């Protein structure tokens, strides 16, 4: 449920794991984050410049705000280029292999949030 600019409740019902979250964020096939974002990942050579750095994300946004931002950033900015990671409606011409599936599942999103909260 979206309230006060965020989603307070864990999507999976349990807290995420920051180490797994980091692996998802840097992975260009699962998280895709570094295609657009940069961040404190010294070992990652190619980082995107389409979006703000993820450094300090856990200071700027609380857990609830991060959850909305990742699950469905379109609710904040309808025209954002950032995909809504946990939304399967309102899409057109999705490739058959991805149809009906969110980009990340609930557990993965909780892991990513747990990791972003460590970026202080």
């Amino acid at each position: 449920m979206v309230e006060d600019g965020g989603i307070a409740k864990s999507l999976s019902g349990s807290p995420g794991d920051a180490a797994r979250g980091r692996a998802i964020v840097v992975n260009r096939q699962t998280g895709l984050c570094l295609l657009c974002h940069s961040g404190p990942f010294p070992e990652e050579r190619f980082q995107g410049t389409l979006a703000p750095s993820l450094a300090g994300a856990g200071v700027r946004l609380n857990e609830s705000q991060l959850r909305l931002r990742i699950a469905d950033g379109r609710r904040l900015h309808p025209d954002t280029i950032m995909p809504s990671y946990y939304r399967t409606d309102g899409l057109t011409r999705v490739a058959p292999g991805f149809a009906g599936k969110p980009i990340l599942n609930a557990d993965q999103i909780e892991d990513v949030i747990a990791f972003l909260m460590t970026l202080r």
Partner: protein
Amino acid sequence: MMRPRRLRMIMACMAVLLAGPFASGDEIPLAARKSGSEFMSRQTQDMQNDDTSNPAMLWVLEGETLWSKPAGTANKSCSSCHRDAATSMKGVAASYPAFDETSSKVINLEQRINLCRTEQQKASPLAYESRDLLALTAYLARQSKGMPIEAKDDSRTRPFREAGEKLYSERVGQLNLSCAQCHTDNWGQKLGSALLPQAHPTAYPLYRLEWQTVGSLQRRLRNCMIGMRAEPYAYGDQEFVNLELYLMWRARGMTMEAPGVRP
């Protein structure tokens, strides 16, 4: 008094209304347009510009041979009808896709070649991305090298161009992206390791080092759609031809560089 949190939300909403990086929707001013080759390393540019090092020249040479080789049950070659390509085909590739009277549709260069094959030569059409079709398109494109792209804008082609423009700005795929978000709003930015070009079709068909071969513009468009996790159109679909026409129109007046080289 307003609580700080409330105030922050109002400011955030104002920022959205003032629309920073989102949905500019503004096309790139004509004078600010850049070919994809301008985003490449000096080394790759040199490879494209020097005929002796441009790998696509092999396809051009093969196309030259095919041009005068008889084919089909009519046993005619392209040159039987068109003679010297250096004169008869000059500027042709720079003005495709173009309107085809018979089908009342806009068709691209590959489809034009295949119409000549089936109607004139009585030969079977060549498959997309086949060596022979790439060779012939590369050879034809070469006859327009250095010439300005000439996209016709008349009442017959306009509906196709407008359909292409709609596809260009439509968000598709699991990632819900549009061509415009990457190529109009964010060109010059880095998407991972790739520099986003403006998507001008000045150099197609071209040799892509990653493909280790020559590919058509539609192959490139397929790649972008797969990246968006969208179901790509099939080769030769009208949607792709319309997109090609719109891209050529966006690039009107820019210089043809085909056959190009890309990383």
